[in-house]
């Protein structure tokens, strides 16, 4: 067990370093000189001296390996330089916006899991009934619906409905308050985005639960359990679901990264000041220091979620633990 945990934890580093190399190379693939592009974007003229100043500030005048070393060192020490656009430290820019994004992502994940696993299971148990068909349709629509469009539609719906009821359209609060300070105010801001971004997450996990559940229900040990005369409820909960959920757990880990990606678009729709929106602003403003920091952040979140999922997997599945 400890051996498995150690190997798995250590395997995180090659991926992270590889991703750092990739991000580092990508950001240097930008055609032309970043500084010239930045300084020239206003249309005005600039001196050779200001280009050199800019190079020195970004550390571009140093040898490439040294630049990479300081980039990696910066990731570990959380010193990723200043945003090229606002001038504030990148870490500060991210830290102020991270809570709302994390909250929406977690909220979406919780809602999705609570919806997906029961519905997926029921759908499998009632295969080829109208209920199954309904669940499958909802699920496949969830994969096809763009989350930003769903967001726009839900905004229209909320505006129209509240206007019809109270005469004035209801607007969600603009500034973020933590959940523990004012839960109602907080949820009125985050619930709708969480639902729209979580729909796809729920849809994907629902399909996976259904398909693994169908597979497991055909296994010999289920037939054995049934012939022993066990209650159907016990067969489903203890024998089937436990085994069927293993691949679902893996999928939840992989899809969590998609959720973060979905936030990029959803935050734009709901005008939320989270990291997704920051990412779009960074790309729009050609803020490369901020872009590379945000890309690395997403990769770190992805790698760590999958690490947790894999460890969880070992805990859930003795076959891995003792292998």
């Amino acid at each position, binding site marked *: 067990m400890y051996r498995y945990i150690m190997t798995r934890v250590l395997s995180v580093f090659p991926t992270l370093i590889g991703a750092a190399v990739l991000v580092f190379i990508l950001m240097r693939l930008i055609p032309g000189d970043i500084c010239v592009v930045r300084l020239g974007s206003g249309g005005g003229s600039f001196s050779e001296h200001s280009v050199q100043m800019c190079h020195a500030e970004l550390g571009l005048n140093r040898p490439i390996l040294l630049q990479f070393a300081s980039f990696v060192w910066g990731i570990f020490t959380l010193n990723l330089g200043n945003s090229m656009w606002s001038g504030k430290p990148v870490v500060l820019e991210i830290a102020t916006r991270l809570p709302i994004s994390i909250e929406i992502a977690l909220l979406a994940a919780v809602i999705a899991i609570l919806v997906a696993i029961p519905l997926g299971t029921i759908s499998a148990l009632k295969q080829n009934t109208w209920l199954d068909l309904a669940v499958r349709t909802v699920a496949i629509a969830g994969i*096809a619906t763009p989350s930003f*469009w769903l967001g726009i539609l839900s905004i229209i719906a909320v505006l129209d409905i509240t206007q019809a009821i109270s005469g004035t359209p209801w607007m969600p609060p603009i500034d973020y308050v933590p959940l523990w300070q004012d839960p109602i105010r907080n949820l009125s801001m985050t619930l709708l985005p969480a639902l729209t971004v979580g729909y796809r997450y729920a849809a994907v996990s629902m399909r996976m639960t259904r398909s693994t559940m*169908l597979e497991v229900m055909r296994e010999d040990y289920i037939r054995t359990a049934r012939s022993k005369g066990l209650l159907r409820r016990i067969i489903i909960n203890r024998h089937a679901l436990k085994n069927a959920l293993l691949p679902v757990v893996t999928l939840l880990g992989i899809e969590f990264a998609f959720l973060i990606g979905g936030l*990029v678009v959803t935050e734009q729709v709901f005008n939320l000041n989270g990291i997704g929106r920051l*990412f779009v602003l960074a790309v729009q403003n050609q803020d490369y220091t901020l872009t590379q920091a945000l890309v690395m952040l997403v990769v770190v979140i992805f790698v760590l979620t999958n690490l947790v999922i894999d460890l969880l997997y070992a805990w859930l599945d003795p076959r891995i633990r003792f292998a």
Partner: protein
Amino acid sequence: MSVSAPFRFAPQATVDDVPPVKRSAIGMVLNFCHREPIGTFGMAIVLIIAVTGLGAEWIAPYSPTSNDFAAMTEPPSWTHLLGTDQLGRDIFSRIVFGARTALIVGFSSAIVGGFTGLVLGVGSAYFAGRIDMITQRLMDIMMAFPLIIMALAIVAIFGTGVQNVIIAITIPLIPRCARVVRASALAIREMPYVDAARVCGYGHLRIILRHMVPNVMAPFLIMLTAFVGQAILAEASLSYLGLGVQEPVPAWGLMLQGGAEEYATTAPWIAIFPGLAIMLTVFGFNLFGDALRDALDPKLRDR
């Protein structure tokens, strides 16, 4: 007695003895339609979108870029089937031309990304050893970037526009294809006919192209359909963010940008129809892909 005697001791025909039926392409399509009604519905959607995209000039009643300032934010009517947007452009015509953009981006990204992944996946499985390890680690690293995040990072480098959006969506699709193809190819590598081909002294390229690639076609085609849907969705997202296809090129995601939210209560059709077009198209590709999987992979048929 004399007639049936020769047959009495004839060995029972097994599945292996049945000669493979050579079916024509039309026969295969008809068979698919018969067995997969839902998939056929998906295929029909895909075909309608494809025809719309190809014949946009003949189908659209107006130019997608011409403004009619006398008819701004008009509700759907017989003159403007799906209404007009805030600049007086006919929404139906823009959706029709948008289908072309969506299909160009969707198919180019899926095909280029898919085939690159196919080559990498089969090659990686065939050569095994160190080449396989290096390729797989590289794919692992690329997989750590969510599709839209990597696409945005690539847009940050190359800039916006149709061509760059295609590049931005193609690159993250490569590892996703390579991984699935490799898994299938690993099993095929161990097949006796691959050994036989090797014994015959065939070159690597011939074994890969003639013996391995055709046998991973089933999972590959399934994935390709899913990729087209994903790519269309990604293009719409990028365009919606203002970092994808740029005006005046008509694109569904672009139509939802700006006006859609501002006119949410007064002219909801601006927001509703382009989104519906995206959803329907991706829905069609997903249904078709699912049915294709069921048809090509008998193990999954009842799921």
